[in-house]
């Protein structure tokens, strides 16, 4: 491929070594603002510190019981200016929402408002201890209570468990509540049904709670096969776990019918709420027969993803499951004082299945999420869902003439548009398109998920992108897809312009090097 493609891209101009376009190789390996940064352990020193502390007094009294460290730990330190520079340089090798469009499907990479950050850092929230006497932390308990109330109202559910630390932890909470509810009525059920399009966390969670997992197939239109599901229901099925909107980006229109059938068979309905952003303020899962659903505060409610957490996964619960909610939880007494129900409140704790984490959940995420929710209000949140869905449909309809959209005929999508690699030629794959988008300045979409679509590309724009930004993305996405359709060999080597080219993941796994040696 030497001819420029339709977007005017000439691969040979860019790959030339020392040619006019790529410039000379530099002594440092740096390229202007693209700066290489050594490992901390290559630049730090054992005797350097960036914190001023009194020197160790070898003669100071010690009550360490003869366990004082004799060996070096093997740590190294940097002064403050070196530290700031090390991490600032590293940060510039990262893509974040603040830099550009980040359409990672099912992850809801929306703007993270800075008011959230400011509020979470108020000393009244940031500098309070989880075991402080409860009369000293009434405001914290009230935050948990207020956020819980919002989550219940937004989902149309009567109760919420606030302590789960992330989405997968929330799933575990819901499944444990379901197991506890079955146990309470002496009903030993062994099976959890999970659609094949589900997030991997669903079957992993059910297995962790000692259930046997069985797959439920999808229909050709990308929804749960209701007939197959109904046929499998029976006295051994404890629950079904369904994502709605599902991972194909579609609303499960038969959800209510599924829920009724599951309930009639004595099971419970777990809804994976990862995609709640599509329906927040528009649809209440409680109206669809859900028994438990986790809410990723780091998706729908804008708390930062932080390079892989921390998340937060409160779980809303139906009347049937609410009594089994984990400890601790917040209540208000008649005098308006908030208090925690913990192990000791034997009557009030009822049949709770117990504690899932040491303290009260992700308080730092609660303050951010509540700030976000109050900013939007009921009207703003409805607009969030509408704009998120509008943006996704706009991308779907702007791409489907050139890119295979397996469920494009199944009606509107919700907050994410799903594509497949069916028409790519010359061995080009979804991975190549993703890497080509990196060169165009975008974070790629989710790739190879859901598993039900070959070479899946799941694009979730969220509501916080402007039309101009989405149009620009569509132009770039179309250009890269055209190269894949045309079999552009050069795309197989992309990305060219990122801080690193394609990384050898096979070598990394074959001989794992998981810590610095030396």
């Amino acid at each position, binding site marked *: 491929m030497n001819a420029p493609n339709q977007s005017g891209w000439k691969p040979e101009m860019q790959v030339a070594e020392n040619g006019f376009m790529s410039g000379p190789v530099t002594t440092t390996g740096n390229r202007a603002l693209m700066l290489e940064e050594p490992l901390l352990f290559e630049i730090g020193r054992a005797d350097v510190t960036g914190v001023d502390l009194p020197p160790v007094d070898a003669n100071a009294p010690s009550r360490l019981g003869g366990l004082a460290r004799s060996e070096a*730990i093997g740590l190294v330190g940097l002064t403050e200016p070196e530290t700031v520079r090390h991490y600032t340089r590293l940060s510039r090798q990262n893509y974040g929402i603040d830099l550009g469009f980040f359409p990672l499907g099912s992850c809801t990479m929306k703007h993270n408002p800075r008011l959230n950050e400011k509020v979470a850092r108020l000393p009244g929230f940031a500098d309070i201890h989880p075991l402080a006497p409860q009369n000293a932390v009434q405001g914290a308990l009230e935050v948990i209570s207020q956020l819980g109330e919002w989550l219940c109202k937004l989902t149309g559910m009567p109760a919420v468990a606030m302590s789960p630390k992330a989405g997968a932890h929330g799933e575990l909470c819901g499944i444990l509540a379901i197991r506890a509810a079955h146990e309470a009525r002496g009903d030993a059920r062994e099976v959890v049904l999970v659609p094949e399009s589900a997030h991997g966390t669903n079957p992993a969670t059910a297995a962790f709670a000692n259930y046997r997992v069985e797959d439920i197939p999808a229909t050709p239109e990308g929804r749960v096969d209701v007939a197959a599901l109904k046929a499998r229901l029976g006295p051994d099925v404890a629950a079904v776990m369904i994502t709605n909107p599902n991972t194909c980006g579609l609303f499960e229109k038969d959800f209510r019918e599924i829920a009724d059938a599951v309930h009639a068979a004595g099971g419970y309905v777990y809804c994976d709420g990862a995609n709640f952003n599509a329906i927040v303020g528009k649809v209440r899962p409680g109206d669809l027969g859900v028994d438990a659903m986790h809410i990723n505060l780091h998706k729908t409610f804008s708390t930062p993803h932080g390079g892989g957490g921390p998340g937060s996964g409160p779980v809303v619960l139906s009347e049937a499951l609410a009594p089994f909610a984990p400890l601790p939880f917040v209540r208000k007494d008649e005098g308006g004082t908030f208090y925690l129900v913990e192990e000791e409140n034997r009557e009030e704790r009822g049949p709770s299945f117990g504690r899932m984490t040491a*303290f009260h959940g992700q308080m730092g995420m609660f303050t951010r999420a509540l700030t976000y929710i109050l900013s939007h209000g009921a009207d703003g949140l409805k607009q969030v869902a509408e704009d998120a869905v509008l943006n996704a*449909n706009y991308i779907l309809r702007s791409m489907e003439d050139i890119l295979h959209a397996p469920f494009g005929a199944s009606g509107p999508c919700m907050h994410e548009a799903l594509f497949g690699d069916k028409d790519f030629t010359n061995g080009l794959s979804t991975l190549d398109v993703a890497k080509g988008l990196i060169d165009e300045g975008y974070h790629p979409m989710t790739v190879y998920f859901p598993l039900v679509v070959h070479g899946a590309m799941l694009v979730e724009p969220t509501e916080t992108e402007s039309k101009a930004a989405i149009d620009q993305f569509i132009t770039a996405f179309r250009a890269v897809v055209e190269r894949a359709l045309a079999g552009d060999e050069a795309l197989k080597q992309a990305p060219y312009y990122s801080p690193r080219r394609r990384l050898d993941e096979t070598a990394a796994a074959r001989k794992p090097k998981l810590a610095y040696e030396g």
Partner: protein
Amino acid sequence: MRYLPLTDTDRQAMLAKIGAASVDDLFVDVPEVARLDGPIHGLPMHASEMAVERHMKALAAKNLVAGDVPFFLGAGAYRHHVPASVDTIIQRGEFLTAYTPYQPEIAQGTLQVLFEFQTQVARLYGCAVANASLYDGSTACWEAVAMATRVTRRKRAVLSGALHPHYAQVVKTMAHFTGDEIADAQPAITPEPDLDGLIARIDEDTACVVVQYPDILGRISDLTPVADAAHAKGALLVVVNTEPVALGAIRSPGEMGADIVVGEGQSLGVGLQFGGPYLGLFAVRDPKHVRQMPGRLCGETVDAEGKRGFVLTLSTREQHIRREKATSNICTNSGLCALAFSVHMTLLGERGLRELAAENHRLACLAADRLAQVPGVEVLNTAFFNEFTLLLGGKPARQIVRDLADRGVLGGVSLGRLYPGVKALEHALLVAVTETTTEEDIEALARELEASIKETV
């Protein structure tokens, strides 16, 4: 609305492209019964930044800020000074607003940080390999037990009585559902932990023995005999640490023979935050156990041009590949807290961590000596790092803690709060001292404790 860039003109143009008359046409698949006709009733409408900030500030003002009073709480969450540069670094948008590094070519920042973090944690713990973090210490503790059952193919875990009771609760909650057997116990109020008693509980069916170091009463002891006894029976030793600063002063768990070391990393970089988000640390001493570890792992490799780079690796253990056969259901970890921990640890370095630990211990010794002079008060521990247990001469510690709060001193964590209903522990108070504690704070606690004890029946 300030976070929504689309204008009505944009929306109309986009609907035209889609071929829909209104946005409601995009929700046609929602069944009639579940469609709402407008914003959900009974909830407030959108609000300005100023109004929201005012609301949240009013809530924050209802809390007693740790830094505003003499403060001595610990029990798994410690108040340390976090250097200013930590927070400015974690607020860089490239770190704050990135996600799990699924596309390593544009996530080398996060990945290199994780590689450095894993190295720091492994060295601190005296282990070969650490993962890229878990939710918190308590969930990491359960993950360690679960891993031990996989490695040994046994189903029984023996918990030391001096393991943080909330950690023990988490383990018991999970084990109830997985069918694992948990042998737990309550702490005996003795100057030194009863390791012989613990060793006697290890048998041929034991997958692991779980010991906290320093323990819930602040006591420290050499765990080598426990490691030897566990290994002799084919069991693993899991050591739990809730105060990483301690390991700047005392021997590492790995050095004493621990097979899995887990803990809470909150002390460094993270702050109290009413209990979360925190940072679960997880490491193994023997590299052969790596493939049984839970959570994300970052590894070194090279790119197509031969340059060093980093990727998430060994993901065949994980849920997104292995689904129901995964080693854990964990997906998101505690990435930003791991960054904060790592930056703080970088600022400290070997020298700073040792100095920080020494300063904590110096002040804790000072406090223990001063508080022992309060009539009716006795220090339980023979050995401790920065936290110790006071016996209050038969006075109920929980009531005294509340009374101290009314007197403007956050005086510690009562064992009555941690072990409700256990008579033998009602009169004990756990006191933590860090570099943020001043000699005036210690004097204030001694003074108010004396007054409170006198007035408490």
